[in-house]
Protein backbone atom coordinates (compact mmCIF):
# COMPACT_ATOMS: atom_id res chain seq x y z
CA UNK A 1 0.00 0.00 0.00
CA UNK A 2 2.85 2.41 0.85
CA UNK A 3 4.47 1.68 -2.51
CA UNK A 4 1.18 2.02 -4.36
CA UNK A 5 0.56 5.32 -2.58
CA UNK A 6 4.06 6.58 -3.41
CA UNK A 7 3.71 5.49 -7.05
CA UNK A 8 0.30 7.19 -7.41
CA UNK A 9 1.82 10.32 -5.88
CA UNK A 10 4.41 10.36 -8.67
CA UNK A 11 2.01 9.90 -11.61
CA UNK A 12 0.95 12.67 -13.97
CA UNK A 13 -2.70 12.06 -12.95
CA UNK A 14 -1.75 13.10 -9.41
CA UNK A 15 0.07 16.17 -10.78
CA UNK A 16 -2.94 17.13 -12.89
CA UNK A 17 -5.38 16.61 -10.01
CA UNK A 18 -3.27 18.74 -7.67
CA UNK A 19 -2.57 21.50 -10.19
CA UNK A 20 -6.30 21.81 -10.80
CA UNK A 21 -7.08 21.36 -7.11
CA UNK A 22 -9.02 24.61 -7.09
CA UNK A 23 -11.96 22.80 -8.65
CA UNK A 24 -11.00 19.22 -9.48
CA UNK A 25 -11.22 17.71 -5.99
CA UNK A 26 -14.50 19.41 -4.96
CA UNK A 27 -15.80 18.72 -8.49
CA UNK A 28 -15.00 15.01 -8.21
CA UNK A 29 -16.54 14.97 -4.71
CA UNK A 30 -19.71 16.56 -6.10
CA UNK A 31 -19.94 13.86 -8.78
CA UNK A 32 -19.19 11.21 -6.13
CA UNK A 33 -21.98 12.57 -3.91
CA UNK A 34 -24.50 12.65 -6.77
CA UNK A 35 -23.68 9.01 -7.57
CA UNK A 36 -24.11 8.13 -3.87
CA UNK A 37 -27.58 9.69 -4.14
CA UNK A 38 -28.35 7.47 -7.16
CA UNK A 39 -27.21 4.25 -5.48
CA UNK A 40 -28.53 4.98 -1.96
CA UNK A 41 -31.86 6.45 -3.15
CA UNK A 42 -32.44 3.36 -5.31
CA UNK A 43 -31.50 1.04 -2.44
CA UNK A 44 -33.98 2.85 -0.20
CA UNK A 45 -36.82 2.55 -2.72
CA UNK A 46 -36.02 -1.15 -3.28
CA UNK A 47 -35.94 -1.93 0.46
CA UNK A 48 -39.28 -0.15 0.97
CA UNK A 49 -40.83 -1.94 -2.01
CA UNK A 50 -39.65 -5.30 -0.66
CA UNK A 51 -41.20 -4.38 2.71
CA UNK A 52 -44.46 -3.50 0.93
CA UNK A 53 -44.22 0.12 2.09
CA UNK A 54 -43.73 2.01 -1.21
CA UNK A 55 -43.99 1.72 -4.98
CA UNK A 56 -46.68 -0.97 -4.89
CA UNK A 57 -47.90 -0.10 -8.42
CA UNK A 58 -44.90 -2.05 -9.73
CA UNK A 59 -43.70 -5.57 -8.94
CA UNK A 60 -40.19 -5.94 -7.45
CA UNK A 61 -39.14 -7.38 -10.81
CA UNK A 62 -40.37 -4.23 -12.60
CA UNK A 63 -38.60 -1.99 -10.08
CA UNK A 64 -35.46 -4.01 -10.66
CA UNK A 65 -35.74 -3.43 -14.42
CA UNK A 66 -36.05 0.31 -13.79
CA UNK A 67 -33.25 0.61 -11.22
CA UNK A 68 -30.59 -2.05 -11.89
CA UNK A 69 -29.00 -0.19 -14.81
CA UNK A 70 -29.34 3.11 -12.93
CA UNK A 71 -27.52 1.58 -9.92
CA UNK A 72 -24.79 0.05 -12.13
CA UNK A 73 -24.27 3.45 -13.74
CA UNK A 74 -24.03 5.05 -10.29
CA UNK A 75 -21.48 2.46 -9.15
CA UNK A 76 -19.29 3.04 -12.24
CA UNK A 77 -19.35 6.81 -11.63
CA UNK A 78 -18.52 6.20 -7.95
CA UNK A 79 -15.54 4.06 -8.94
CA UNK A 80 -14.18 6.59 -11.46
CA UNK A 81 -14.68 9.68 -9.27
CA UNK A 82 -13.30 7.73 -6.30
CA UNK A 83 -10.17 6.76 -8.27
CA UNK A 84 -9.64 10.41 -9.18
CA UNK A 85 -9.93 11.41 -5.51
CA UNK A 86 -7.40 8.72 -4.54
CA UNK A 87 -4.99 9.89 -7.27
CA UNK A 88 -5.28 13.46 -5.96
CA UNK A 89 -4.46 12.51 -2.36
CA UNK A 90 -3.09 8.92 -2.23
CA UNK A 91 -1.85 8.98 1.39
CA UNK A 92 -5.12 10.41 2.67
CA UNK A 93 -6.94 7.32 1.36
CA UNK A 94 -4.75 4.27 0.78
CA UNK A 95 -2.92 4.34 4.13
CA UNK A 96 -6.11 5.07 6.06
CA UNK A 97 -7.72 2.26 8.07
CA UNK A 98 -11.23 3.63 7.59
CA UNK A 99 -10.69 3.82 3.82
CA UNK A 100 -9.58 0.17 3.82
CA UNK A 101 -12.67 -0.80 5.85
CA UNK A 102 -14.83 1.17 3.42
CA UNK A 103 -13.39 -0.77 0.45
CA UNK A 104 -14.15 -4.13 2.13
CA UNK A 105 -17.74 -2.97 2.75
CA UNK A 106 -18.02 -1.71 -0.86
CA UNK A 107 -16.95 -5.08 -2.32
CA UNK A 108 -19.51 -6.83 -0.08
CA UNK A 109 -22.27 -4.32 -0.98
CA UNK A 110 -21.65 -4.59 -4.74
CA UNK A 111 -21.76 -8.39 -4.48
CA UNK A 112 -25.00 -8.35 -2.43
CA UNK A 113 -26.48 -5.81 -4.82
CA UNK A 114 -25.93 -8.25 -7.74
CA UNK A 115 -27.42 -11.13 -5.73
CA UNK A 116 -30.47 -9.04 -4.80
CA UNK A 117 -31.00 -7.84 -8.40
CA UNK A 118 -30.95 -11.45 -9.63
CA UNK A 119 -33.40 -12.56 -6.94
CA UNK A 120 -35.73 -9.60 -7.66
CA UNK A 121 -35.82 -10.44 -11.36
CA UNK A 122 -37.10 -13.92 -10.45
CA UNK A 123 -39.89 -12.61 -8.22
CA UNK A 124 -42.36 -12.65 -11.11
CA UNK A 125 -42.22 -16.44 -11.06
CA UNK A 126 -41.92 -17.18 -7.36
CA UNK A 127 -43.30 -15.66 -4.14
CA UNK A 128 -41.17 -13.26 -2.09
CA UNK A 129 -39.25 -14.90 0.74
CA UNK A 130 -38.10 -13.49 4.06
CA UNK A 131 -34.52 -13.72 2.85
CA UNK A 132 -35.28 -11.35 -0.07
CA UNK A 133 -36.49 -8.68 2.35
CA UNK A 134 -33.58 -9.24 4.74
CA UNK A 135 -31.13 -8.90 1.85
CA UNK A 136 -32.67 -5.56 0.79
CA UNK A 137 -32.50 -4.14 4.34
CA UNK A 138 -28.99 -5.48 4.90
CA UNK A 139 -27.81 -3.84 1.68
CA UNK A 140 -29.32 -0.51 2.72
CA UNK A 141 -27.57 -0.77 6.11
CA UNK A 142 -24.29 -1.49 4.29
CA UNK A 143 -24.66 1.64 2.13
CA UNK A 144 -25.28 3.67 5.31
CA UNK A 145 -22.09 2.30 6.88
CA UNK A 146 -20.18 3.02 3.65
CA UNK A 147 -21.39 6.64 3.60
CA UNK A 148 -20.39 7.08 7.25
CA UNK A 149 -16.95 5.54 6.61
CA UNK A 150 -16.50 7.76 3.55
CA UNK A 151 -17.16 10.92 5.53
CA UNK A 152 -14.80 9.80 8.30
CA UNK A 153 -11.87 9.22 5.89
CA UNK A 154 -11.36 12.98 5.91
CA UNK A 155 -11.13 13.14 9.71
CA UNK A 156 -9.01 10.14 10.69
Amino acid at each position, binding site marked *: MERLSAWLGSTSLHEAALNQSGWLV*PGAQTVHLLA*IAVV*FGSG*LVIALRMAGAAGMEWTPARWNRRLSGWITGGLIVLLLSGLLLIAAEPERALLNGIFQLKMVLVVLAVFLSRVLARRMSRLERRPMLGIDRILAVLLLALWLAI*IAAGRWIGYS
Partner: protein
Amino acid sequence: MFANLLISLGESRIGTAVAESPTLFPWIEVVHVIGIATVVGTIMLVDLRLLGVAALDYPFTRFSRTLLPLTWIGFLFALVSGLLLFSSQPVLYWENWYFRAKMLLLLLAGLNMLLFHFMAARGVTRWERTVTIPAAARIAGAVSLVLWVLVVAAGRWIGFTMTPF
Protein backbone atom coordinates in the same frame (compact mmCIF):
# COMPACT_ATOMS: atom_id res chain seq x y z
CA MET B 1 -30.22 42.50 14.73
CA PHE B 2 -29.61 39.58 12.38
CA ALA B 3 -25.88 39.70 13.08
CA ASN B 4 -26.59 39.47 16.81
CA LEU B 5 -28.83 36.47 16.19
CA LEU B 6 -25.98 34.72 14.32
CA ILE B 7 -23.51 35.52 17.09
CA SER B 8 -25.79 34.27 19.86
CA LEU B 9 -26.48 31.07 17.89
CA GLY B 10 -22.72 30.50 17.66
CA GLU B 11 -22.36 31.14 21.39
CA SER B 12 -25.31 28.92 22.32
CA ARG B 13 -24.72 25.62 24.05
CA ILE B 14 -25.47 23.68 20.85
CA GLY B 15 -23.26 25.90 18.70
CA THR B 16 -20.23 25.62 20.98
CA ALA B 17 -20.75 21.86 21.42
CA VAL B 18 -20.69 21.27 17.62
CA ALA B 19 -17.71 23.60 17.22
CA GLU B 20 -15.65 22.10 20.06
CA SER B 21 -16.39 18.37 19.92
CA PRO B 22 -13.95 16.44 17.70
CA THR B 23 -16.58 13.82 16.80
CA LEU B 24 -19.87 15.74 16.66
CA PHE B 25 -19.21 17.67 13.44
CA PRO B 26 -18.25 14.60 11.32
CA TRP B 27 -21.19 12.57 12.63
CA ILE B 28 -23.64 15.39 11.87
CA GLU B 29 -22.05 15.56 8.40
CA VAL B 30 -22.77 11.84 7.97
CA VAL B 31 -26.46 12.50 8.73
CA HIS B 32 -26.38 15.50 6.36
CA VAL B 33 -24.96 13.38 3.52
CA ILE B 34 -27.56 10.63 4.12
CA GLY B 35 -30.35 13.23 4.10
CA ILE B 36 -29.04 14.76 0.87
CA ALA B 37 -28.62 11.34 -0.77
CA THR B 38 -32.25 10.54 0.11
CA VAL B 39 -33.54 13.88 -1.22
CA VAL B 40 -31.52 13.87 -4.43
CA GLY B 41 -31.80 10.12 -5.05
CA THR B 42 -35.60 10.13 -4.88
CA ILE B 43 -36.20 13.49 -6.56
CA MET B 44 -34.06 12.47 -9.54
CA LEU B 45 -36.39 9.51 -10.13
CA VAL B 46 -39.42 11.86 -10.05
CA ASP B 47 -37.68 14.41 -12.32
CA LEU B 48 -36.76 11.73 -14.86
CA ARG B 49 -40.38 10.55 -14.78
CA LEU B 50 -41.49 14.14 -15.49
CA LEU B 51 -39.01 14.38 -18.35
CA GLY B 52 -40.49 11.20 -19.81
CA VAL B 53 -37.13 9.42 -19.65
CA ALA B 54 -38.28 6.48 -17.52
CA ALA B 55 -41.18 4.90 -15.60
CA LEU B 56 -43.80 6.11 -18.09
CA ASP B 57 -45.95 3.08 -17.22
CA TYR B 58 -46.21 4.30 -13.60
CA PRO B 59 -48.96 7.00 -13.42
CA PHE B 60 -47.23 10.23 -12.38
CA THR B 61 -49.41 11.15 -9.38
CA ARG B 62 -48.95 7.71 -7.86
CA PHE B 63 -45.23 7.73 -8.64
CA SER B 64 -44.69 11.08 -6.92
CA ARG B 65 -47.05 10.19 -4.06
CA THR B 66 -45.00 7.10 -3.23
CA LEU B 67 -41.57 8.76 -3.57
CA LEU B 68 -41.97 12.37 -2.42
CA PRO B 69 -42.69 11.47 1.25
CA LEU B 70 -39.20 9.92 1.25
CA THR B 71 -37.82 13.14 -0.26
CA TRP B 72 -39.41 15.17 2.55
CA ILE B 73 -38.11 12.86 5.28
CA GLY B 74 -34.63 13.15 3.77
CA PHE B 75 -35.03 16.92 3.58
CA LEU B 76 -35.94 17.07 7.27
CA PHE B 77 -32.76 15.15 8.16
CA ALA B 78 -30.66 17.41 5.91
CA LEU B 79 -32.29 20.55 7.33
CA VAL B 80 -31.83 19.70 11.01
CA SER B 81 -28.27 18.44 10.53
CA GLY B 82 -27.53 21.46 8.31
CA LEU B 83 -28.74 23.85 11.03
CA LEU B 84 -26.50 22.08 13.56
CA LEU B 85 -23.47 22.39 11.24
CA PHE B 86 -24.38 26.04 10.65
CA SER B 87 -24.57 26.69 14.41
CA SER B 88 -20.86 25.82 14.80
CA GLN B 89 -19.78 28.99 12.94
CA PRO B 90 -22.90 30.97 11.97
CA VAL B 91 -21.16 34.22 11.06
CA LEU B 92 -18.54 32.54 8.85
CA TYR B 93 -21.13 30.41 7.05
CA TRP B 94 -23.36 33.39 6.50
CA GLU B 95 -20.45 35.35 5.01
CA ASN B 96 -19.51 32.45 2.71
CA TRP B 97 -20.67 33.05 -0.87
CA TYR B 98 -21.11 29.37 -1.64
CA PHE B 99 -23.37 29.06 1.40
CA ARG B 100 -25.46 31.98 0.14
CA ALA B 101 -25.58 30.45 -3.34
CA LYS B 102 -26.74 27.14 -1.87
CA MET B 103 -29.54 28.82 0.10
CA LEU B 104 -30.63 30.72 -3.02
CA LEU B 105 -30.61 27.51 -5.08
CA LEU B 106 -32.70 25.75 -2.42
CA LEU B 107 -35.17 28.64 -2.52
CA LEU B 108 -35.36 28.36 -6.32
CA ALA B 109 -35.91 24.59 -6.08
CA GLY B 110 -38.79 25.22 -3.68
CA LEU B 111 -40.23 27.88 -5.98
CA ASN B 112 -39.98 25.54 -8.97
CA MET B 113 -41.82 22.88 -6.98
CA LEU B 114 -44.61 25.33 -6.04
CA LEU B 115 -44.92 26.56 -9.64
CA PHE B 116 -45.18 22.98 -10.84
CA HIS B 117 -47.70 22.09 -8.17
CA PHE B 118 -50.01 25.02 -8.91
CA MET B 119 -49.53 25.35 -12.67
CA ALA B 120 -47.86 22.56 -14.59
CA ALA B 121 -49.47 19.77 -12.58
CA ARG B 122 -52.96 20.95 -13.52
CA GLY B 123 -54.68 18.39 -15.68
CA VAL B 124 -52.05 15.81 -14.70
CA THR B 125 -54.71 13.09 -14.66
CA ARG B 126 -55.16 13.67 -18.40
CA TRP B 127 -51.53 12.97 -19.31
CA GLU B 128 -50.14 10.81 -16.53
CA ARG B 129 -51.11 7.57 -18.27
CA THR B 130 -49.93 8.63 -21.73
CA VAL B 131 -46.45 9.08 -23.21
CA THR B 132 -47.02 12.76 -24.01
CA ILE B 133 -45.98 15.04 -21.16
CA PRO B 134 -46.74 18.78 -21.43
CA ALA B 135 -43.73 21.05 -21.99
CA ALA B 136 -44.33 22.91 -18.69
CA ALA B 137 -44.05 19.66 -16.73
CA ARG B 138 -40.89 18.62 -18.60
CA ILE B 139 -39.33 22.02 -17.94
CA ALA B 140 -40.16 21.75 -14.22
CA GLY B 141 -38.44 18.33 -14.14
CA ALA B 142 -35.34 19.61 -15.97
CA VAL B 143 -35.08 22.74 -13.78
CA SER B 144 -35.38 20.64 -10.63
CA LEU B 145 -32.66 18.25 -11.82
CA VAL B 146 -30.23 21.09 -12.59
CA LEU B 147 -30.98 22.96 -9.35
CA TRP B 148 -30.36 19.91 -7.13
CA VAL B 149 -27.05 19.16 -8.88
CA LEU B 150 -26.01 22.77 -8.22
CA VAL B 151 -27.17 22.56 -4.57
CA VAL B 152 -24.88 19.54 -4.06
CA ALA B 153 -21.98 21.29 -5.81
CA ALA B 154 -22.42 24.50 -3.77
CA GLY B 155 -22.51 22.42 -0.59
CA ARG B 156 -19.26 20.67 -1.50
CA TRP B 157 -17.62 24.03 -2.25
CA ILE B 158 -18.65 25.37 1.17
CA GLY B 159 -16.60 22.54 2.67
CA PHE B 160 -13.54 23.62 0.69
CA THR B 161 -13.76 27.30 1.58
CA MET B 162 -14.37 26.74 5.30
CA THR B 163 -12.33 24.88 7.90
CA PRO B 164 -14.62 22.96 10.26
CA PHE B 165 -12.70 23.88 13.41
